[in-house]
């Protein structure tokens, strides 16, 4: 018997629980020669803002032990150009498209974006990125100015999620930051405000310095750490959140293969996202899907849901 891989994220039904994470898969067209797109559970786009955004000065990335730092600064063409130039290809991929959005100003911009996208039928869900560590929030949101992220404050998280919730009937996913004291507290705030699901985690804030020149390796000085280096932290957070919320978790952080994907399912993730590994082996996500089928068959598990949160204690 074929094991059942499909899962639900809010109103969205995924054929399988393996997605590709925002910012690591461009707008999918860049990877069309390397990945059979239609096999993916879903594609999450690079984050879009209302207006085109230039991003941060280079250098924007550097490699670190078992990981990498990035401070791209959300370079993107803005929502209207995205809809005109990027969405047509994404639509053709035949898999659910989850659009990641963020605001360069305040709550109002989130609402405007959500309203604009609400009527676009080719978009399956909206992920609100309230956890990008590489932009300055000159927002009007109290407690979230300067380098403080919305996802670092439960009240601000609640306020943003609630406002976006009112603006769209689409499945709403909130992306959380690991740069917090208690991620479960923020997760609960998002759940209470009406988020359908949670993506966790975004990158950990880090630094790297060239000892020879004494210059930071990233122009923006601080940057987001991703890759296998952060996996144990991400996994712990997945488990913590799983125990405190009822909505589905999309787990991510250093997943590179089937065994690391399974760790997240076992710690409570309903779906997982492949991020940095897309750069190393673009076929990582599709290989995990095959690996998952094999794992379930070998262990005589009929439905993938049986392993979600099944941590043996």
């Amino acid at each position, binding site marked *: 018997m074929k094991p059942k891989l499909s899962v639900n994220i809010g109103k969205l039904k995924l054929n399988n629980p393996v997605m590709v994470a925002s*910012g690591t898969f*461009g707008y999918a067209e860049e990877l069309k020669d390397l990945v059979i797109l239609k096999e993916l559970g879903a594609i999450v786009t690079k984050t879009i803002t209302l207006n085109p955004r230039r991003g941060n000065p280079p250098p*924007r990335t550097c490699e670190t032990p078992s990981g990498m730092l990035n401070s791209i600064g959300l*370079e993107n063409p803005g929502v209207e150009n995205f809809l005109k130039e990027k969405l047509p290809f994404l639509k053709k991929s035949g898999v659910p498209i989850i659009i990641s959005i963020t605001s360069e100003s305040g709550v109002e911009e989130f609402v405007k974006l959500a309203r604009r996208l609400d009527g676009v039928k080719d978009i399956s869900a909206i992920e609100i990125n309230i956890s990008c560590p590489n932009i300055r929030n000159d927002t009007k949101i109290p407690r979230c100015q300067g380098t403080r992220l919305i996802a670092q404050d439960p009240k601000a998280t609640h306020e943003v999620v609630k406002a976006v919730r009112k603006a769209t009937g689409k499945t709403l996913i909130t992306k959380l930051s690991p740069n917090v004291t208690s991620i479960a507290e923020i997760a609960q705030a998002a759940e209470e405000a009406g988020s359908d699901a949670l993506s966790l985690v975004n990158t950990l804030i880090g630094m790297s310095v060239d000892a020879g020149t004494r210059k930071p390796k990233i122009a923006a000085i601080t940057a987001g750490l991703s890759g296998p280096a952060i996996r144990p932290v991400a996994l712990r957070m997945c488990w913590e959140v799983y125990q405190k919320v009822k909505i589905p978790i999309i787990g991510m952080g250093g997943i590179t293969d089937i065994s690391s994907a399974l760790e997240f399912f076992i710690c409570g993730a309903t779906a997982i996202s492949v991020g940095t590994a897309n750069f190393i082996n673009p076929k990582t996500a599709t290989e995990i899907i095959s690996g998952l089928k094999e794992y379930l068959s070998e262990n005589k598990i009929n439905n993938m849901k049986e392993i979600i949160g099944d941590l043996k204690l």
Partner: protein
Amino acid sequence: MPQIKAKIVYNKKVKENYWCCVFNAPEVVKKASPGQFLNIRVEDKELLLRRPFSIHGIQGSGLGIIYEVLGKGTKYLSRRKPGEYLDIIGPLGNGFDYKTQGCQGTMVPVLVAGGMGVAPLFFLAEKLRENQNPKSKIQNVVLIGAKTKNHILCEKEFKAAGFDVRIATDDGSRGFKGYVSELLEKILSADLRHVQSASSKDAERSRGIYACGPKPMLKEICRISRKYGLSSQVSLEEHMACGIGACFGCVAETKEGYKRVCKDGPVFKADDLIW
């Protein structure tokens, strides 16, 4: 641009710290154009990202790169033996425009290589020669810059391809003493005097510059190119994360804003770059 497993057929030190690796990659060879690059996986737990290398040359179904062993990634590569396989994505990026520029008799191609910058330029040299009318009297020129006489790469190969080879070394141990960009400017100012004093048709031909090398050198090439009103193309070297345009990590500033070195480049028109 396929992702393939390519079998190594040759991997040896050329001189100093420079190595040459050749592997069998017919799918890549078919599509490869000078200035394009390959993104090679380093199968190491700690080193995560692929490493980009310019395509140095092709022969049959074989494809060659040259590299300098500087860090852990290139050290890993230098330890690979013939018979082993490399995980390669390529060819990637936009290469040199050599068909509409430089070999149609309206321009004299001048290749300017600094250090490892010879890597893509040798492949270009071969293509320029292939595309050139055998009766053409144009003398292709390459300027090779190196630290010392021991660091000069591909001199023989360029000569065999019919190029007039000029050398610049930082320490003056061979050829012109100084940077290769200074040598270029010296040649161009001599051209200018020639044009002013003569009316020969050859002198009316402008030069088309193709350059690759370290950033300060390319910045100089762009300045010189503007000063002399030349048409120039430069290939930028940059650390990359994805290599395929997905992550927006390797951008360069241009007249039209940031452009991705891996996808929109690595070759750019000198006039478009902002330094």
